[in-house]
């Protein structure tokens, strides 16, 4: 079961090993502890990759290939593409994709920057990382 969806801010912070990243790494460990999975939307992965250093990009590549049962890379489905496009003026594409997958899997969205999503999701479905 996919329990938590990460947006680009969560993925990039994890990869950069910033001081705040302990929050997301411990969240990942907790999800794995119950044999659930963390979802990584493709658009969030791409956005995080674009924002990352070469060293962090290596971490990202390893991140989505090391534990496929626990870290699931989620492709943007064709039927969801118009939704992402139609919302791109109001919300970053990675966050739209995260919300779509959150709805699909009934999972929470974890982000270091949840407020832009608050207009489009119930606050109880959003996890503010810190």
């Amino acid at each position: 079961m996919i329990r938590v969806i990460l947006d680009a801010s969560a993925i990039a912070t994890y990869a950069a090993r910033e001081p705040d990243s302990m929050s997301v790494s411990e969240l990942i460990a907790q999800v794995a502890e119950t044999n659930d999975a963390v979802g990584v939307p493709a658009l969030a992965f791409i956005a995080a990759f674009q924002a990352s250093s070469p060293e962090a990009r290596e971490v990202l590549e390893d991140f989505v290939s090391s534990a496929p049962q626990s870290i699931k890379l989620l492709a943007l489905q064709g039927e969801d593409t118009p939704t992402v496009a139609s919302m791109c003026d109001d919300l970053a594409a990675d966050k739209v994709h995260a919300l779509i997958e959150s709805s699909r899997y009934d999972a929470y969205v974890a982000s270091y920057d949840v407020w832009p999503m608050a207009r489009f999701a119930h606050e109880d479905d959003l996890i503010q990382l810190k």
Partner: protein
Amino acid sequence: MILCDERMVDGMTRKLSISLPDDVAKVLDDVDNASAYIAEAIVMRRERDTVAAMLKRHGHVVTAEGVAAWRERLAEMDRRKAARRAEVEK
């Protein structure tokens, strides 16, 4: 301590004779397929170990307290979500 000896049955499975502590073995008394139960437990443990190794390889130190805090926070979020849905269904 778990003791075992093993024999090859075919290319896909191995037949093992294992020794388990009494309290652990007692769990298997109530399951239909002990082999499947043990196999699933091993796969689950291996996946957790894989994630732990990945986090360590990426330079992340995970604390038991931090993981426990997330366990509580997610459980609380689950409770709130369930309550919200129950309210909607009324």
